[in-house]
């Protein structure tokens, strides 16, 4: 087990490093000297400004942009490993500090959405599988298909249109009260639950078709007992996996949802930073998100191994 854990941690670290390298490459390869971008978008804030050579050189010196991209990257990496992610070009404040300041907002949104999603998924998935091919089942399947296909930003706009602008019972955007949390989390939760509902249903159906269930039925056990005590437990194992993966994809979803709802989280920070090419901040956010994603995947994998008796007792698999 330890060996596996170590191997996974190493893999996660590699993934995060690779992401940071990729991001850095992309940012260095972009059109327009980075210094020029800093001057125009951040220092002066006027798109039309024509910086002189002297200004560009000063900015390069002050922001540490002299030298080939490779060298700059390894300098960044070295600092990052020691916990110094540099300072934002925009605010001059440390990147790590700014990301941590916005963490609670994103965490709140993520956790609320996931909870809502689970609250929708489990009953829907169970009922759907229990009464397969009934009207209820098809309604659930329709819900699923619908919310997988709907673009989250569009759904968000529709919700705003109905609940904030026409009915005027919820705020349009922003942060600061429970009311502000409602629409963004519903947007995210519906998208997530669409996928997990389907998987819960199919996983439960597969389990219900298994031999030991048939045996339990033959033994005369009550249908509900079978459903909850035996089937659900085993069916939940892959579902845990999926919920874990969904939490990871949540991080992508938050960029859009936070932007639409003006939710001051890390997703919005990333989107804003990309727009002004705040390279240290972009790097910081991407690394952070990749790290979160990897950690969640790791936890899910570990819990999967812990939960699944087949894996636990069947050594050497996977």
């Amino acid at each position: 087990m330890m060996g596996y854990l170590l191997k996974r941690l190493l893999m996660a670290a590699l993934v995060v490093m690779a992401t940071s390298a990729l991001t850095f490459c992309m940012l260095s390869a972009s059109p327009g000297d980075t210094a020029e971008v800093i001057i125009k978008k951040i220092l002066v804030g006027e798109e039309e400004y024509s910086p002189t050579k002297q200004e560009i050189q000063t900015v390069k010196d002050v922001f540490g942009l002299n030298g080939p991209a490779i060298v700059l990257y390894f300098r960044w990496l070295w600092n990052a490993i020691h916990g110094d992610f540099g300072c934002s070009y925009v605010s001059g404040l440390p990147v790590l500090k700014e990301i941590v300041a916005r963490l609670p907002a994103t965490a709140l949104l993520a956790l609320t959405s996931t909870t809502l999603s689970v609250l929708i998924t489990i009953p829907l998935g169970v009922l759907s599988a229990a009464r397969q091919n009934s009207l209820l089942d098809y309604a659930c399947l329709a819900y699923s298909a619908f919310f997988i296909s709907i673009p989250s930003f569009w759904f968000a706009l529709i919700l705003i249109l109905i609940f904030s602008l026409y009915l005027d019972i919820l705020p349009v955007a922003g942060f600061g009260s429970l009311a502000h949390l409602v629409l963004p989390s519903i947007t995210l939760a519906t998208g997530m639950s669409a996928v997990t509902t389907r998987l819960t249903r199919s996983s439960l159906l597969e389990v219900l078709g298994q031999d030991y269930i048939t045996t339990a039925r033959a033994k005369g056990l009550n249908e509900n007992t079978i459903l909850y005590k035996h089937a659900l437990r085993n069916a939940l194992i892959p579902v845990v996996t999926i919920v874990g993966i969904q939490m990871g994809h949540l991080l992508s979803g938050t960029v859009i949802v936070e932007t639409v709802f003006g939710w001051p989280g890390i997703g919005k920070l990333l989107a804003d930073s990309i727009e002004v090419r705040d390279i240290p901040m972009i790097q910081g956010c991407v690394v952070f998100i990749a790290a979160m994603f990897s950690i969640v995947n790791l936890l899910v994998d570990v819990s999967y191994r812990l939960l699944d008796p087949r894996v636990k007792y069947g050594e050497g698999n996977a």
Partner: protein
Amino acid sequence: MKFKAAIIALVLAALLIGCSQVEKGVSEVKETKEVKELLKVGEMWNIRGVDPAKRGTLPKEKAMIVECLVEANPDFTLKPGLAESWEQIDATHWRFHLRKGVKFHDGSVMKAENVKWSIERALKDPTIKSLTKIKKIKVVDDYTIDFITEEPYAAFPATLEYSKLAIVSPNSEMDENGVIIRPIGTGPFKFVKWDTATETLYLEGFDDYWKAKPNLDELVIKAIPDPASRAVAVEKGEVDFTCDVPYGDVERLSKEEGLNVEIHSTARVYQLTFGSLEGTPYEDVRVRKAISYAIDRKAIAEKALHGCAEPAYGIILPTLWWANKNIAGYEYNPEKARELLKEAGWVDTDKDGIVEKDGREFSVTIYTYPQRPGLKPMAEAIQAYLKDIGIKAEVRVMDWSAIKKYMGKEDMKLSAYHLTMVPDPDYYLRKTYHSDGSYNSWGYSNPEMDRLLEEGLKTFDLKERKKIYDEVQKIAIEDVPLIHVAFYKVVVVYKDYVKGFEFNPVAHDYMLNPEIYIEK
């Protein structure tokens, strides 16, 4: 099962922590509501910092925490700020006399060393150094400070109005990198708190402000970057004052009870520039005039931009002191435009709606960028007007850094220039019209214009300068090396119980003033 319980407990804990954070924010706002005279402002940009040297407009123009040596009137004439007066000792030597007894928020008195410290800090930014051309700063005595510029620079005093040159006390709290996180200034409002999570700035009135105690007791500035949210926020009373609501909401909000909607012209101008004036159809001034006549500036301002622009027949906003009000400009006249094109040799020989000359079609691309919401609709409207006189145009929107790569000599670019980063005409006019001007990438060169601009730089008598710049504007419109379409208008929306607001076009977006008060 225990595992599940643990997860549920974790989730609940996180939710509780998150909600308490949120509740804290709500109760804080509730608390301040009990105190009288509080103004809540919805700000359009993200609040990413309060250090004047880095994010000048917020602490100076909006939060009113800091001030500058020089201030400007709405017509862009200069007036004393923290400096009572200034004089010129010689062509590059300026002496500023500071106001005595001005207190910082911590009670200390503002002296020349503080001014030197603030400005030197700002000069670390190379763009500020080029803007002010300051070579050296000398403290003569506690209330007298000298500036030496690199070359004779008549616009120098005006540059000191720039918000990043605001005066801030060295006692301000800074982080380990020297970035100010709690600014101590001389302005009418004191910094209280900056909540980075909700991007809200809390300020309170400064009783010892040198002008007069401000009418408001508290000021809260909340970042609401989404225009639609700003509109809803001011309607519902979440904020009392905001700026730049969506074009579509302007009409509706102005009809609403309890709200004031003001649309003010600024000195920011939408202009159409040519790739090059050499070896292209634009070499011929008749072609340039034709294009200028072809554009219906009024329709664009009223319809495409929903009234949030003012047609520009000159270069400088007519309400400004520096504007030459005797220029007629190019009124919408598509007939004349077609005539001029014909004179220049462009005729539609094959009757396909597009004019040709020497076998070549007049076909161009108009480039613009997405950052200003008015640009795209304006470009598309211009495209339609050009089509009307026989010029085929395609519109492409892209990041301005990419525009440089793709734009050709025969193409056009639509942009929004801040005519006056500082309230002096030299800044924009010289960069645009001088043959060596840094904006002048299209190769306009008129020796008379060059001479005038160079003289304007070195002439220190205001009346003489006005004469020079009037002449500059006249020639600029005659030669029309670039076309000015409209002036950007800012929309300010506030509750009708907010009184005393005076708009000043010197502002980058909008500027609050300490005379504002609440009358409920």
